[in-house]
């Protein structure tokens, strides 16, 4: 769902250019995990702004609540207790949700024209009115983000508040965060901001602090500052080198236009075979044999 329409960089299942005369500035949301206290205000803000109320679930013995992303929960805090060094327990809390990849696997996989769009500001948005509910976006996403609703069989995920951003506001989660762990702005500025945070963390003993902006998916428009950037897996399985799977590349690459062309060629080739070689008929000799 979104208000933009003239600044579309890519559109699912579309082979001609999309409306792109308006160019917007690449934006990014930076989530500084070292500042997050796990209060879930951002989760609450997300449900409020998007006017969604998920089913009330059950406690599964950890702080994660709800236990997983869903069609109505587009972001959630994942809590992991890890002993990074012997005797030093750390509570790493990661705000999970769509990463808004520059090279989005969901968009690449989607077969429905315009069900997924990417704006020139980098936001990847699902347009549910065009969604057919096949789940290919789930297959394509390297971060396991999209969810198909059991209610309407449409795919849903974080929009990066594309509707707010389109009118110059920051995403609801950013506005709400009480510690300033989530900031939003031009992607360039966010990288600069992150560099300052990383320097600060390094001076405080986090020698491996760093920015998570994985280049395997062309960089992301949601980035993390990690205390342990050398071990992203510690953060509830954040992938080390995410990229669109080679299987998805094969499935959605040049093979298909080539296969379509080959199918057409075989059909046309058959026609030409008939025209050039003539039908395979019973020979006159045999025909005569059976004439009384």
């Amino acid at each position, binding site marked *: 769902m979104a208000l933009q329409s003239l600044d579309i960089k890519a559109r699912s299942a579309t082979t001609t250019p999309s409306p792109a005369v308006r160019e917007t500035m690449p934006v990014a949301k930076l989530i500084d995990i070292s500042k997050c206290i796990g209060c879930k205000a951002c989760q609450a803000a997300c449900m409020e702004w998007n006017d969604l109320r998920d089913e009330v679930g059950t406690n599964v013995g950890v702080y994660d609540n709800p236990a997983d992303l869903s069609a109505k929960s587009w972001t959630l805090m994942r809590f992991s207790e890890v002993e990074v060094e012997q005797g030093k327990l750390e509570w790493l809390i990661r705000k999970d949700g769509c990463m808004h990849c520059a090279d989005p696997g969901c968009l690449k996989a989607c077969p429905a024209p315009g069900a997924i769009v990417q704006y020139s500001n980098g936001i990847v948005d699902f347009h549910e009115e065009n969604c057919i509910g096949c789940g290919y976006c789930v297959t394509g996403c390297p971060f396991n983000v999209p969810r198909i609703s059991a209610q309407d069989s449409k795919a849903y995920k974080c929009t990066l508040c594309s509707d707010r951003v389109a009118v110059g506001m920051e995403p609801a989660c950013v506005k709400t965060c009480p510690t300033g762990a989530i900031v939003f702005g031009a992607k360039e500025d966010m990288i600069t901001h992150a560099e300052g945070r990383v320097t600060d963390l390094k001076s405080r003993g986090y020698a491996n602090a760093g920015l998570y902006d994985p280049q395997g998916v062309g960089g992301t428009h949601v980035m993390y500052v990690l205390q342990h950037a050398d071990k992203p897996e510690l953060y509830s399985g954040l992938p080390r080198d995410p990229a669109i799977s080679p299987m998805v590349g094969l499935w959605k690459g040049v093979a298909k236009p080539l296969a379509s062309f*080959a199918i057409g060629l075989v059909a046309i080739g058959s026609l030409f075979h008939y025209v050039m070689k003539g*039908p*395979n008929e019973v020979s006159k000799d045999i025909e005569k044999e059976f004439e009384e």
Partner: protein
Amino acid sequence: MKRDPKDLARYTASERANHWAVGITFILLGLSGLTFFHPAFYPLNQLFGGGVWARILHPFIGVVMALSFVAMFFRFWKLNVITPTDKEWLSRIGEMVDGDDHNMPEAGKYNGGQKLLFWLLVACMALLTVSGIVIWRAYFSALFPIGLIRLSSVVHAAAAAGMIVLIIVHVYAAIWTRGTIRAMWYGTVSRAWAKQHHPAWFRQITGGGK
């Protein structure tokens, strides 16, 4: 068309009905499946009432096809066992395509090309069925790891493209070889047709006579 009492019976009514069930479901599957295959084919979804309906209907039609195909497999597999003569036939397939069947080894009920096609179709159908279940998001995908779903997506698309090509060849061969299509309508073929195209079968069921 009035049938000649001397015509040879090639297919029973239930064999023909089975074949048509497979044929019709295949066409519906091909048209609905191509919808998701490439954007160029997306408009085909209109034949099924839109993209969402194509997505919903395709796998159910697939189940009907898979069941009909299995039934047909058990009717015909024994007749399709490949013999040394068939291999010889296949090695000379170029001459056949060129329109000259004079030196082709004598075919039985099926020639080498038909038998090879049969087994290739069996392989495609098996791959399509297994991979189709894995990528059936509404009911089954949640049961499988993501790597397997990705592999199955590739397998399903590749096997579908392969099967569509094979069926085009199959249908064209039936059109090209005049007097064949009626075998699927009425179940019979003329004696001359049998002697020309399947001489060994002709001898077997007529005892060599006229």
